[in-house]
C-alpha cells in the first residue's frame, strides 16, 4: 500500500507542477532561512568540551572598592588580580586548577631559517591547563609540576608554529626564542580548536588558540607582557602584580556538585577573610559557574544571532502556513477522486495516509532544495565581517536536522489538509464527480 501511495503521490505532484513547485519553494525558503540561522546558533552555542564541561568551573570574587563604578554591575569582575589568583591557586582544594593570561611577543626564527621574526599570541598558564581541557599533543607532553614551581624556561607550541618553524618535525627538545628569551620545547599540540575559545572570552571568542604556551610563574618572573584585558579598580603602580588590577583568568576542575559547593564556600570564606583584613571593601560577592553557565553568563552567543534564529523560525512558520493553504486547495480540488476512492473501499485512514505521503514527498523535495539554500545562506554568512562568520559551515548533525525539519514541517503542513480531505463525504462526491 505504501508503494502505491508513493506512486499516487508522485503522479499527483506531476499533475500540478506549478502548485507543487510553489509548495516546495515555500518550504525550501523557510527551511533554508531557519537552518542557516540555526546552524550559526548551533555552532556558537555548542559545548566546547562535551563530557567535561560540567566539571570545569570559573571562580569569581569581588575585590572592587566601594563606589569604584562597579556599582552599576553587581556581579563580581571576571578577572582576578595576581594576589588573589596566587592565593586561590595555592589555598583552593580543586582537583586541578590553572591560572592564565594572554601574552604576545616576537618569535625569532631558528638560525639559518629564511623566516623573518614574527609576532605570536601566547597563553601563560599552568600545566593543569592541558589536562583540564584535554588538549591533544602531537609530540611530547605538558611541562612538569616542577617546571611550574621552578619557573622553568620551557614551552609548548602549536602544530601551526611547529610547521612554520620546524617543518612539522618533532621539535621536542629544540629551543624557541620568544620575547627575547629562550625556551626548551617540551611539547607540540595536535590540532585543537575549541569553539568558542571558552577559556578566555575577553580576547577573540571564536579565534584560534595561541601558538606558544609558557608556565605562568615563568612568565611572571620574566615579566612577559599582557595582551589580554586588564581591569584596574584603582591607580596602578609600577608593578602590575601588586596593583589593584585584574588580568588573570582562572579555571578549576571540581568533580562533583558537593566539591563545587565546597569550593564556592571557600571563595566566600576567602572573600570574608580579605574583607576582615581590610583588603576587600565589599562583603563577599562570589560566583562559580560551570563552563556552559559561564558561556551563557558571558552571552557568548550574540543576541542578534538568537533574534535572527527566532525570526527565521517565524518565517518558516509563515512558509508552513502558506503550504497548509496550498495543500488544502490541492487536496480539496481532488474531492471527486477522493470520494470515488472512498466508495471503492478506501478507509479514511488510507486516504489520510495517501495524502500525508504526498505532503511528505513535497517535504523531501523541500529538504533537498532547502539544503542547497542553507549552504548558500551559510556561504553568505561567511562573507560577513563578524568574528564567528568563518565558523558557519554545515555540520553533519545539522544536515540531518535540516532533512528532519523539512519532513516534519511538510508533515505538519499536511496534517490539517489530509485530515480535512479524508473527511470528505463520498456520498456527496460520487454524484458530482
Amino acid at each position, binding site marked *: 500500500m505504501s508503494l502505491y501511495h508513493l506512486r499516487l503521490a508522485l503522479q499527483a505532484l506531476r499533475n500540478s507542477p506549478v502548485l507543487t513547485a510553489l509548495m516546495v519553494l515555500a518550504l525550501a525558503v523557510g527551511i533554508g532561512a531557519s537552518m542557516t540561522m540555526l546552524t550559526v546558533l548551533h555552532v556558537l552555542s555548542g559545548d566546547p568540551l562535551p563530557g567535561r564541561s560540567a566539571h570545569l568551573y570559573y571562580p569569581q570574587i569581588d575585590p572592587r572598592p566601594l563606589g569604584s563604578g562597579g556599582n552599576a554591575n553587581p556581579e563580581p569582575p571576571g578577572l582576578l588580580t595576581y594576589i588573589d589568583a596566587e592565593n586561590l591557586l595555592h589555598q583552593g582544594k580543586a582537583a586541578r586548577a590553572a591560572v592564565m593570561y594572554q601574552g604576545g611577543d616576537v618569535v625569532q626564527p631558528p638560525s639559518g631559517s629564511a623566516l623573518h621574526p614574527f609576532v605570536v599570541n601566547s597563553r601563560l598558564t599552568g600545566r593543569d591547563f592541558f589536562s583540564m581541557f584535554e588538549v591533544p599533543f602531537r609530540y611530547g607532553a605538558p611541562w612538569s609540576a616542577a617546571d611550574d614551581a621552578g619557573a622553568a624556561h620551557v614551552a609548548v607550541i602549536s602544530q601551526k608554529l611547529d610547521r612554520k618553524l620546524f617543518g612539522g618535525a618533532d621539535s621536542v627538545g629544540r629551543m624557541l626564542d620568544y620575547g627575547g628569551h629562550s625556551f626548551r620545547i617540551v611539547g607540540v599540540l595536535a590540532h585543537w580548536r575549541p569553539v568558542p575559545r571558552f577559556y578566555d572570552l575577553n580576547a577573540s571568542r571564536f579565534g584560534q588558540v595561541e601558538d606558544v604556551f609558557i608556565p605562568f610563574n615563568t612568565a611572571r618572573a620574566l615579566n612577559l607582557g599582557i595582551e589580554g584585558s586588564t581591569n584596574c579598580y584603582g591607580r596602578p603602580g609600577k608593578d602590575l602584580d601588586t596593583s589593584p588590577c585584574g588580568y588573570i583568568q582562572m579555571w578549576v576542575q571540581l568533580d562533583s556538585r558537593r566539591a563545587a559547593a565546597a569550593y564556592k564556600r571557600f571563595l566566600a570564606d576567602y572573600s570574608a577573610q580579605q574583607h576582615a583584613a581590610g583588603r576587600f571593601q565589599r562583603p563577599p560577592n562570589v560566583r562559580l559557574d560551570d563552563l556552559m553557565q559561564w558561556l551563557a553568563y558571558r552571552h557568548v552567543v550574540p543576541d542578534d544571532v538568537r533574534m535572527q534564529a527566532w525570526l527565521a523560525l517565524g518565517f518558516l512558520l509563515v512558509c508552513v502556513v502558506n503550504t497548509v493553504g496550498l495543500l488544502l486547495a490541492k487536496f480539496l480540488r481532488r474531492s471527486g477522486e477522493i470520494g470515488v476512492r472512498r466508495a*471503492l473501499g478506501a478507509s479514511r485512514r488510507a486516504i489520510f495516509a495517501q495524502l500525508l505521503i504526498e505532503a511528505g514527498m513535497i517535504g523531501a523535495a523541500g529538504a533537498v532544495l532547502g539544503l542547497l539554500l542553507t549552504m548558500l545562506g551559510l556561504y553568505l554568512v561567511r562573507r560577513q565581517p563578524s568574528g564567528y562568520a568563518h565558523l558557519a559551515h554545515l555540520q553533519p548533525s545539522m544536515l540531518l536536522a535540516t532533512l528532519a525539519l523539512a519532513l516534519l514541517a511538510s508533515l505538519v503542513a499536511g496534517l490539517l489538509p489530509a485530515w480535512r480531505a479524508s473527511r470528505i463525504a463520498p456520498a456527496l462526491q460520487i454524484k458530482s*464527480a
Partner: protein
Amino acid sequence: MLDMRNVSKIYRTTTVETHALRDFSLDVREGEFVAVTGPSGSGKTTFLTIAGLLEELTHGEYVLDGVDVHGLDDNQRSRLRNEKIGFIFQAFNLIPDLNVLDNVEVPLHYRRGIGAAERRRRATQALERVGLSARVRHYPAELSGGQQQRVAIARALAGSPRLLLADEPTGNLDTAMARGVMDLIEELHREGATVVMVTHDPDLAARAERNVHIVDGMASGIIEEPSMRPAVRAQGEGAFRIPGAED
C-alpha cells in the same frame, strides 16, 4: 443478500430536519436484479448511499450479506464496501489521471492479501469481460462514454463483489451506448450477479426482475416484473466471479 428493515435517514441542520428515507424496507435475494425507481428527490440516491455503506442510516436495520452494518467503524465499513459491493455510477467516476488498467485496479489496492500480479490478472480479466482489453493503456478522456462506463463496470467486477449497485448507469449515455451497457448488466445478472439499479427511467426499470418504487422516502409499492428472469445462476453463491479469480 441485502436486507433493510424500517430504515430511516434524517439529515439535520440547525434549522431543518429532512427525512430522506422513512421506514424503508427491502429484501434483495441473492442473484436478483432489482430496480429502485422514483422521481427526483424521492430518496433513491439516499437509498443507494446507505445500501453502499457510504452513509449511515439514522434508524432501522441493515444486514448486508449476513453482516449487520450497525455500529461498524469506518475501517470495517470500508472493508465491507470493498469486498461486497461493486459500484457503477451514472458519471462513471473514473480517475482521469489513471489509465484504464490502473482505474480497474483501484479497489484491489484497498484489499489485503492481493499482490501486484494478482491485481493485474484480475483487472485484465475484468477488462476482457467488458470487451476493452485492447484499451488498457488508454486514459478515460480517450474513450467514449459507453467505453468509460464499461471500464467502470470492469472496475466494479474486478473485486468479485457480492452485490452490484448501479446508479442511473446509462444516464450519461446516448441510446446506442445505453443499450450496450444495459445488455452487459443483464448479462452479468444472468451469470449470477445480484444487481440493484437505481433509475428514474421506466424502460430501464422494466428490464429488472423486480421494481421498488420510492416516493417521499417511502417504498410505495413493490412491483414484480417477471419479464427478466435470470437464465443462468451461479451455483451456490451470488458473487460475480471472473473466471479463475480468487478472493
